[in-house]
């Protein structure tokens, strides 16, 4: 065990058992998986993406490129989990990934030997000979070798939550800057949210041995958190990563509610996706250490200087027996001193700078740490790091060490500032990019903007928060800023050790090397975005947080441009990867979208209905009876029973729009191609409406209930669309019209009864209403009551071609009405039918429906052209007169029957003249709808075919190669049943 004997923010009274690659280990509450692994002497944790090189733990935060593991098992397996941010829990199991057969011995590490061949752009230049092998051989091989972890194979068993939050100020990051900001804003009374991705607030303070107000800085953190927790206007969100900045001050954040537990407790989500709307935001996300590139810089044991400090100080885990620090800045020295203080054996500090600041030299001397100034690491050795070769003025020297802690300077975490496209700006004095233009309302404080001293982080957090809330009208108290050190940063830009030995990695996860950058330069991929895409630099799961700046700086050296002008690649959301399930939340499985039952749903279920999705609705499709062997048998029965007796179907899903007002009739005249202002009260009329481009939008019957009162019905699919269109017409096109609309779709249950006995049934449910043919003729509308006092509207309309009525009652009465109709119809053999039989009957009758109203057909195409009034304007009139709409060869709507009555028709078949081949050029149209007609005893179809109406009686091919169909069909009139409509009027 390399657990340091004392210190650390771990709870030694709470030991936790866990396993890695099946091996049992122990850690403590407060550990991350990474710190626990290190404390258990595990140094080899993963394999890299391309060359499968052994890798250890590089960082102590979410920027980790190397230590990716498969966490948990079975359906909960989470590939690519960063050991550095996985909070240890009892029973945790993790496994290494991207290796076979084992982490220790991975066959694909031979890729490393091919390194000289596999440089940037390799794939684009090869695998082309012979062409056929790419698909069969090369690509499957590449794919199998690529990828990292394995996805789970079963549905994710956990649940996820979504929550909205609103605040005045969102503080992102709870380090020194963020805590001061939240305190300042919180004390002002503003509504504040403080989110930190870590499970503990404090940021760097948790790992730095610093003082605030002459006391250990940790005390400041504890005080601040306690005060914030007590403020009612402040919400603390630990374990919460703000992952994206979006328009309108909206932020996406992910809270890991139960990831630190073996399983989510009952009724607790695994994670929660927060949608935060913030009037102002303050980014206090800190900065990370970036590496220096040199040969052999990827061996397990090489880590960032900050990571060394964090493991030693925060987790009391010693990453290795002896450590060498290699850096170009003074901050790394303090990291080394803190680590030494915690118990790490620091063999040497190697600094590329010929002369380090005297004060640091002095400190090193006091601690007895050896210093090599003007030194560079030129090689490393050991499968797990065992020694470091350092070159300096005095020559080369090999130093035994298990840890090489490197720091090439700090890179501010500017990611979120660029989500609106803002470009970070290079600051030479800190050799790093700081935020440029930020999303509206966003400010930045602390290390995230390059303020690297603790004093300035505290001060800036307070100042920026005060300004943000005072912009919103809150008066910020002059919060006293605690005292802390304010040492100047000292850094000399240094990216890459020239002449170092062995592959030198820039992007550790994607195995992008210094040589790859040279290749990209040679081949002209010099713009940073091209460099990225050609070499995959920065495209790994860490998004290049530790590699981008170095990589582009190395390109800058090659092009001779300065680093700032070379620029960074674009940061995009999410800041760190986010689980898909968390964003989906409750909307999964059957709850993906709402299911809308009809008012008679329970009744239909009791009748044994099979249901079908119709948009969000669930409708009865057919009602099978015992003994029936397939759906067709059932549907035939339902159709026959309706046509010979009486049938019943729920049609409540149609859109119903109440239209009132003095101008209602005039309004309808403008939206329908036919006229409604002349419709007598108590009558209904079939109407067709167009889009402004002349194509049919929807159809349905509209009734006149009163002098200034109409009721429109729309198709189920278009209910919302038509309502919106009508509001558009009223509010945008003709605001002068005095018309009031309301959707009454949900208010009314509507049941259709159809068949020769329909009136006999109806008569028994109405409360003394005269529904005789004379009193309520075809297309008549009556209002009254049914079932002894239930308000009802009765429309004598028909989709089936039979005598039919639609009876509307308040939705709550829908089931009662269905039951009453069934009882009243029992003597006549009343039969409930579903959408399937409805479809058969409408096809037999030759009515157009969804398949024909497909957004590509004009009224004329559908044989409805004659309905169009020539005496008025209406939406779509002008453009429906365009040449293409009037062309000779345009399709028209007709019926089809098989020449051989036994043949089955298929919707989707195309029509071809006989004797012509099945090519696009010979395509004459297609079958839109088909049904087996029990009445006729064969399949029938509707379709659109060029000049159809002129070709009645002609035979054509119905060509359906996707189902192997090719049969002769005869073009016929679309109404197979009662073309004169006599049955409707009896």
């Amino acid at each position, binding site marked *: 065990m390399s657990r340091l004997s004392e210190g650390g923010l771990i709870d030694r009274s709470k030991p936790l058992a866990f396993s890695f690659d099946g091996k049992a280990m122990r850690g403590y509450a407060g550990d991350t998986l990474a710190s626990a692994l290190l404390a258990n002497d595990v140094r080899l944790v993963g394999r890299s993406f391309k060359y499968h090189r052994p890798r250890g733990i590089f960082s102590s935060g979410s920027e980790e490129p190397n230590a990716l593991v498969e966490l948990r098992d079975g359906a909960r397996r989470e590939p690519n989990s960063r050991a550095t941010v996985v909070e240890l829990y009892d029973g945790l199991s993790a496994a290494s990934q991207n290796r076979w057969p084992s982490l220790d011995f991975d066959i694909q590490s031979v890729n490393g030997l091919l390194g000289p061949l596999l440089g940037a752009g390799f794939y684009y230049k090869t695998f082309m000979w012979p062409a056929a092998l790419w698909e069969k051989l090369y690509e499957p091989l590449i794919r199998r070798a690529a990828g990292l972890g394995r996805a789970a194979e079963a549905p994710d068993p956990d649940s996820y939550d979504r929550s909205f939050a609103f605040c005045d100020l969102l503080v992102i990051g709870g380090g020194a800057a963020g805590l001061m900001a939240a305190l300042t804003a919180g004390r002002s009374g503003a509504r504040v949210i403080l989110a930190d991705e870590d499970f503990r607030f404090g940021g760097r303070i948790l790992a730095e041995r610093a003082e605030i107000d002459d006391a250990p800085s940790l005390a400041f953190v504890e005080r601040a958190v306690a005060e914030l927790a007590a403020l009612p206007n402040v919400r603390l969100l630990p374990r919460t990563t703000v992952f994206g900045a979006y328009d*309108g001050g909206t932020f996406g954040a992910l809270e890991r509610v139960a990831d630190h537990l073996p399983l989510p407790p009952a009724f607790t989500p695994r994670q929660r996706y927060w949608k935060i709307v913030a009037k102002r935001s303050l980014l206090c996300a800190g900065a990370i250490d970036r590496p220096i590139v040199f040969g052999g810089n990827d061996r397990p044991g090489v880590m960032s200087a900050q990571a060394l400090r964090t493991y030693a100080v925060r987790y009391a885990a010693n990453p290795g027996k002896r450590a060498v620090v290699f850096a170009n800045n003074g901050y790394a020295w303090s990291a080394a001193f803190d680590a030494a203080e915690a118990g790490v054996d620091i063999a040497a500090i190697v600094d590329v700078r010929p002369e380090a600041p005297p004060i640091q030299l002095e400190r090193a001397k006091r601690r007895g740490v050896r210093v090599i100034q003007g030194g560079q690491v030129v090689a490393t050795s050991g499968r797990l790091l065992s020694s470091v070769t350092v070159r300096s003025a005095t020559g080369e020297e090999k130093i035994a060490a298990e840890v090489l802690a490197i720091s090439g300077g700090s890179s501010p975490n500017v990611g979120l500032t660029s989500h*609106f496209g803002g470009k970070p700006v290079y600051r030479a004095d800190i050799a790093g990019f700081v935020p440029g233009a930020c999303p509206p309302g966003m400010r930045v404080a602390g290390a995230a903007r390059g303020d690297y001293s603790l004093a300035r982080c505290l001060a800036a957090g307070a100042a920026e928060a005060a300004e943000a809330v005072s912009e919103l009208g809150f008066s910020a108290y002059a919060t006293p800023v605690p005292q802390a050190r304010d040492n100047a940063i000292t850094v000399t830009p240094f990216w890459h050790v020239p002449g170092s030995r062995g592959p030198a990695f820039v992007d550790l996860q994607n195995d992008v090397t210094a040589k790859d950058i040279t290749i990209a330069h040679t081949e002209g991929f010099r713009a940073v975005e091209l460099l990225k895409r050609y070499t995959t630099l920065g495209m790994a799961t860490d998004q290049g947080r530790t590699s981008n700046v170095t990589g582009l700086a190395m390109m800058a050296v090659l092009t001779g441009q300065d680093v700032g002008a070379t620029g960074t690649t674009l940061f995009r959301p999410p800041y760190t990867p986010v689980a898909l399930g968390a964003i989906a939340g409750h909307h999964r499985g059957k709850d993906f979208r709402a299911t809308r039952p009809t008012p008679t749903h329970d009744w239909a279920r009791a009748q044994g209905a099979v249901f079908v999705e119709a948009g969000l609705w669930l409708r009865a499709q057919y009602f099978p009876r015992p003994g029936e062997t397939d759906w067709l048998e059932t549907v035939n029965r339902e159709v026959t029973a309706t046509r010979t007796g009486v049938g019943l179907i729920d049609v409540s899903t149609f859109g119903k729009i109440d239209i009132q007002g003095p101008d209602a009739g005039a309004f309808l005249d403008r939206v329908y191609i036919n006229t409604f202002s002349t419709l007598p009260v108590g009558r209904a009329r079939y109407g067709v409406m167009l889009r*402004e*481009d002349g194509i049919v939008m929807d159809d349905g019957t509209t009734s006149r209930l009163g002098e200034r009162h109409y009721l429109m019905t729309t198709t189920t699919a278009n209910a919302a669309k038509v309502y*919106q269109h009508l509001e558009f017409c009223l509010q945008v096109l003709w605001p002068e*019209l005095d018309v009031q609309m309301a959707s009454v779709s949900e208010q009314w249950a509507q049941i259709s009864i159809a068949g020769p006995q329909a009136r006999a049934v109806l008569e028994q449910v109405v409360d003394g209403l005269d529904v005789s043919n004379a009193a309520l003729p075809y297309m008549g509308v009556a209002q009254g009551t049914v079932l002894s006092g239930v308000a009802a509207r009765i429309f004598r309309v028909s989709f089936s071609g039979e005598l039919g009525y639609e009876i509307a009652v308040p939705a709550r009465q829908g089931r009662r009405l269905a039951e009453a109709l069934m009882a009243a119809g029992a003597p006549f053999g009343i039969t409930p039918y579903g959408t399937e039989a409805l479809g058969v009957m409408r096809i037999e009758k030759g009515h157009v429906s969804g398949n024909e109203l497909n957004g590509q057909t004009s009224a004329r195409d559908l044989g409805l052209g004659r309905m169009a009034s020539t005496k008025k304007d209406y939406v779509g009139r002008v*453009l429906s007169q365009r040449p293409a709409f009037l062309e000779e060869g345009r399709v028209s709507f007709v019926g089809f029957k098989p020449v051989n009555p036994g043949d089955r028709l298929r919707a989707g078949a195309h029509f071809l003249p006989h004797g012509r081949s099945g090519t696009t050029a010979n395509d004459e149209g297609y079958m839109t709808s088909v049904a087996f007609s029990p009445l006729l005893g064969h399949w029938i179809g509707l379709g659109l075919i060029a000049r159809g109406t002129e070709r009645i009686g002609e035979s054509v091919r119905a060509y359906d190669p996707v189902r192997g169909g090719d049969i002769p069909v005869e073009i016929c009139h679309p109404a197979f049943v009662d073309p004169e409509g006599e049955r409707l009027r009896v």
Partner: protein
Amino acid sequence: MRLPCPYCGVRDAHEFSYLGDAAPRRPDPAAPDAADAFHDYVYLRDNPAGAIRELWYHGAGCRRWIVVDRDTRTHAIAGATFASGSASGDAS
């Protein structure tokens, strides 16, 4: 994105449906050049990279059509009014 509905207040764009540029006006259908005018009205757009006044429908809210002033490069929103032109939006 959040749109300031003059009736409901500021709401997520999710509640609205989008139509597009509010500039095109339905032409006089009786005019002799109606065919051309309608073609332009229905199909042609300025599609500016910058300020645009555009029509949104608050379908999940007050069901009003509103005209939003927005910048298509930044999504910054300058304001919104009822499309019907009246202050109260009650089509009066």
